[in-house]
């Protein structure tokens, strides 16, 4: 976790500085959450890909497709359509997450510049 440690300098901390530090903390938390969410979304995407591939290989007409807690007997074409839809949804979600992550990384870099500029060695904003 990134910590702020006071050094030997006597730089005053203004409310604006505190707000910047708070914001940095929030962004950092959100960044880690996003990394986890992106990992899960990527896994889901892979699973859907695998499922789609298996579907092409199988020669059954009725596929057991999981809906909720049960496996419903669904014709192959419908399953294909459903999987395509789910892949669409997951890809869009993944895209949005990646975008958010990039924006957060940029904001954090900005804040680092500002805070290091004012506090230099008195503050530590790196991951340990």
């Amino acid at each position, binding site marked *: 976790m990134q*910590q*702020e*440690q*006071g*050094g*030997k300098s*006597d730089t*005053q*901390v*203004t*409310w*604006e500085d*505190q*707000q910047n*530090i*708070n*914001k940095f*903390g*929030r962004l950092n*938390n959100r960044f880690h959450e996003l990394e986890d969410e992106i990992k899960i979304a990527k896994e889901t995407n892979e699973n859907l890909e695998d499922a789609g591939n298996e579907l092409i290989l199988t020669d059954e007409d009725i596929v*057991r497709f999981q*809906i*909720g*807690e*049960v*496996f*419903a*007997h669904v014709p192959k074409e419908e399953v294909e359509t459903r999987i395509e839809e789910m892949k669409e949804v997951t890809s869009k979600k993944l895209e949005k997450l990646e975008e958010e992550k990039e924006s957060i990384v940029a904001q954090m870099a900005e804040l680092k510049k500002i805070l290091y500029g004012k506090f230099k060695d008195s503050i530590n904003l790196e991951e340990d």
Partner: protein
Amino acid sequence: MASTSIETTSSFSSQTTATERRGIPGAQFVEDVQTYLSQLGLDVNSALAFLQERLQQYKLVEMKLLAQQRDLQAKIPDIEKCLDVVATLQAKKGTGEDLVADFEVSEGIYSRARIQDTDSVCLWLGANVMLEYSYEEATSLLQKNLDNAKASLEVLIADLQFLRDQVTITQVTIARVYNWDVHQRRVRQATTVAKDS
């Protein structure tokens, strides 16, 4: 309701106090350590002890909120799955076919069920209560539960953010009070040396 949105208010008061939020006391931001200590009327060690205790309290609340968040995050996919099933049943209704499904009877053991065209589903409401609903009623009930859960989650996340901000403020204050003390000691030592020499 006092919500702490962070806006630049440094021109208004010299010590911007965050009001409390849902039982979580706000951490007082310290403009000047000297004034803060004299205002509290505490010496450095007592002030540090007080701040440390506050930090512990915040951590406790944080754990509680995190647990609640985990619960909600597990509940939401559950409700979405239920909505999915009801929607599927509703779609099947038009075709007149029976829905054949395999369901888990026990771990690793599945059984086949043939679900005929019906107009209603039974929903488990908890506390050993199950009620029968029509498709539309079931969908609207589940949707309402889903919306409530999502709204609660949002409030919870905002609470956690507020809490984490207070933790950060308290940590910074502890560091500053400690540094101020170190600085004071050095100054005192320097003046004693100057007096003696």
